[in-house]
């Protein structure tokens, strides 16, 4: 090994090298960014192409729509991005709106309006907590003949679009079931536990809670009274035994019961 760079020139050389490195680095960065931006634009145009070719499917087929939405979210594109964000750069409007015209974007907003309607109409009977499946069914029922099908995924997404309004609308997971909440109210742990228990048979009783959750009678009664006063349970006194407290989401058609009971 020979010793290198002992002379004064070594300083120069090292400055040179680092300058080289720096310029090389920025070259790399630039070409990287270029490559990325071309990739992005290629991707974008592909996505656009895809969306355009399949616009009809996206609009009419809920499963396809859900898949497309999922694909978008995986790559970090929010298809429902607010239409007011980027006025300057190439036109505002969410991706849906840009790619598919207004119709798909409007699809979700219109759906959201229906969601609000159904939640409002049913609030009296369910205290502002409605099962996602039930909500989807009701929203579908109210639609015009020939309009496309609605999936639970669509409804979930529609509820998301309501968020910026600062309302109380939210998707809520209790046990295995998803609910849409339309009142600004948080459930306590005990309340959640009871709502979860209700999902099994459609009803609970003080005895059932006491035996299965190991709560004292007073605690069971308190939670049930709470939920009753919030309109989330209905009492059935004709049981010939203990009173039973029913979840209004079990108010289902007898032939639709399979769907709801899952």
């Amino acid at each position, binding site marked *: 090994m020979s010793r290198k760079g002992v002379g004064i020139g070594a300083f120069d050389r090292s400055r040179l090298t680092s300058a080289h490195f720096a310029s090389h680095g920025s070259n790399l960065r630039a070409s990287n960014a270029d490559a990325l931006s071309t990739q992005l634009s290629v991707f974008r145009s592909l996505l656009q192409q895809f969306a355009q070719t399949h616009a009809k499917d996206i609009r009419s087929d809920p499963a396809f729509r859900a898949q497309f939405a999922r694909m978008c979210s995986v790559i970090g594109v929010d298809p429902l991005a607010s239409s007011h964000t980027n006025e300057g750069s190439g036109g505002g409007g969410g991706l849906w709106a840009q790619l598919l015209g207004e119709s798909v974007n409007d699809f979700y907003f219109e759906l959201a309006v229906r969601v609000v309607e159904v939640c409002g109409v049913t*609030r*009296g*009977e369910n*205290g502002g907590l409605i099962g996602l499946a039930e909500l989807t069914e009701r929203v579908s029922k109210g639609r015009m003949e020939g309009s496309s099908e609605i999936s639970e995924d669509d409804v979930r997404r529609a509820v998301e679009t309501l968020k910026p309004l600062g309302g109380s609308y939210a998707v809520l997971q209790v046990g295995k079931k998803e609910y849409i909440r339309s009142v600004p109210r948080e459930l306590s742990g005990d309340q959640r536990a009871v709502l979860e228990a209700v999902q099994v048979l459609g*009803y609970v009783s003080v005895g059932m809670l006491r035996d299965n959750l190991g709560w004292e009678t007073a605690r069971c009664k308190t939670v049930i009274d709470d939920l*009753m*006063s*919030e*309109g989330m349970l*209905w*009492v*059935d*006194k*004709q*049981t010939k035994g203990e009173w*039973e*407290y*029913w979840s*209004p989401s*079990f*108010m*289902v*058609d*007898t032939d*639709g019961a399979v769907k709801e009971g899952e």
Partner: protein
Amino acid sequence: MAAASTASAAAGADASSFRFPREYSFPAFFTRQTNLTTHHAQLSKWSALVLAYARHHRIFRLGLSAAADSDLFYNRRLDRRLGMPDIRELLDFMKKDGRIEYASGGGGGSEGEVVFVYWRKPEEWARKIEKYVEETGQKGSVLTVYELGEGEGTRGTEIHGIDNEVLLKALNVLVRKGRAQIFGQDDSQGVKFF
């Protein structure tokens, strides 16, 4: 008159084809709810059910005691029923909306208390009748009340088979508006439309 049947008689005809709403299979629907908001929702649902049921079976008057035992208020599959006090509360609720009216005593007899169920209010029937008279070019002519309710002319229209008293109530709406005039008595009443 044929139309003056009570709930139980009419329900026998084709009870199977009436599709009860989802809440009818919900046990708690038959217990009066304590929460005010819930109770109001419950009454609205019951009201809608009674009207839909009556419309389906073309029930014009409902005998309370018979109705309490009919499938309208008594779900035998669930073994749940709406009790008489709750039925009365429901009827009061519907009365405020002008959807029922207690029949003035006398007519019922063995049926006990009877209410008219207005799945169409007398005013709505009045409009139907007026439209029928207009469309068949019978303005200015005299029709008997019997003809309107039971005659061949109205066969196929909704007016056919209407309860006689409801029909008279509807005609009186037209009389008050100066659109018709009733004359004659009891069984031989006639009505002239202007």
